[in-house]
């Protein structure tokens, strides 16, 4: 019971890290997705390189580079902002690819029709292409949110007092090895399940009425 309450009290920190990193990533992913479709080959190449790096370095290594590496040499920061920025940048890499998938699913004719109507590129993206691409991207975004929720456990390694941090502390101080981890696992599953249900529901809802 003691373990349970302690772990439960750390849930807000886990949710804060998860949602803040997701929000940060969702914004930074926009220019990255744009860069992947640039007219200039060099921009496309550089963006692809950035995305590959963000997705290819293990999250914990990336967070370590930011916290211990950048943190000791350039700017000193607290574990929490380092965690959010680290997971946020990783999210940006993944979400950019998810956005790109959404953009690719929009029929070429939609771009041509917008051009034929003389719409500005801002209007084309905000009113025509964006909403359609977003619809395709949403289930993938929720899936990423679920894996980010689980990945947020790694920021315990730099001292952010989220679920995993409290759990291993509890295990160490009580000498009970198994129970705290079982509880933590159950809490993560309890947090992830509604998101998974949401993803399935959205997928059904958003594909409704589409012929393809």
């Amino acid at each position, binding site marked *: 019971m003691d373990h349970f309450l302690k772990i439960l009290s750390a849930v807000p920190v886990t949710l804060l890290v998860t949602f803040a990193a997701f929000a940060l990533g969702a914004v930074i992913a926009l220019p990255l997705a744009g860069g992947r479709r640039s007219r200039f080959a060099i921009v496309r190449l550089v963006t692809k390189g950035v995305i*590959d*790096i963000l*997705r*290819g*370095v*293990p*999250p*914990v*290594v*990336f967070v*370590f*580079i930011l916290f*211990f*590496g*950048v*943190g*000791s*040499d*350039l700017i000193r920061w607290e574990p929490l902002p380092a965690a959010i920025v680290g997971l946020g940048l990783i999210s940006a890499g993944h979400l950019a690819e998810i956005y790109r998938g959404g953009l690719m699913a929009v029929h070429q004719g939609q771009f041509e029709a917008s051009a034929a109507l003389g719409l500005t590129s801002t209007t084309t993206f905000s009113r025509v292409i964006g909403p359609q691409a977003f619809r395709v991207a949403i289930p993938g975004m929720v899936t990423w949110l679920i894996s980010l929720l*689980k*990945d947020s*456990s*790694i920021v*315990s*390694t730099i001292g952010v007092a989220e679920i*995993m941090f409290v*759990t*291993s502390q509890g*295990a160490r101080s009580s000498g*009970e*090895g*198994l*129970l705290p*981890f*079982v509880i*933590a*696992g159950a809490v*993560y*599953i309890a947090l*992830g*399940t509604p998101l998974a249900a949401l993803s399935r529901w959205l997928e059904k809802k958003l594909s409704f009425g589409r012929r393809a």
Partner: protein
Amino acid sequence: MELLTDWVEWLPRLLSGLWVSVQVTVLALVIGIPIGFVLAFMSSAKNAIVRWLTIIVVEVGRGMPALVMLQMVYFGLPEAGVVLDSFAATVIALGLTTSAYTSEIIRAGLRAVPEGELEAADALGLKRADIVRFILIPQGFRIALPTLMGFAILILQVSSLAFTLGLPELLSQAYSIGASTFEYLEVLTLAGILYLVITVPGGWLVENFEKRLSKHLA
């Protein structure tokens, strides 16, 4: 210049760490994928109890963060009388995570085998077991292969979490060099590059492979 000489000095230790990372990754896949196959079949069993129990096991395995799984096996199991060293604990924990994830990947692959193939095999009078062995498994596996390869790359990344168990893999080596030289940024960046040397070309390989497999659809 100094950075380069440092890197050259650190490289042997980091490479030995990378070798440990690759070893635990490969072993986890070798253990996890066959179990994933079994779970994939059990989660579409006719018997509802078997089916639901399997689905629960798979969902628990997928819903639990790999870090929780690792620490539970290493710090938790001794309480139940099972004491493992960090290498064995990592292989088992990552193997369990692998089996849960790959069972869903394999199940999707098996489901994607065209119905007509199975009907044709049936019409030719093939026995049920032969249809599974010669038609369903080879084709389903082929469809699942790119996703499985992508997952293998992911597990290499996840293996970096084993540093929390004190396993001397790549991240542990980099961190301990950082702790003794205070050159965290340099050594951790080099570690990141070593991961990229595997994950980025691996990603390209998967992409290429996917394109080749779907050529007939273009």
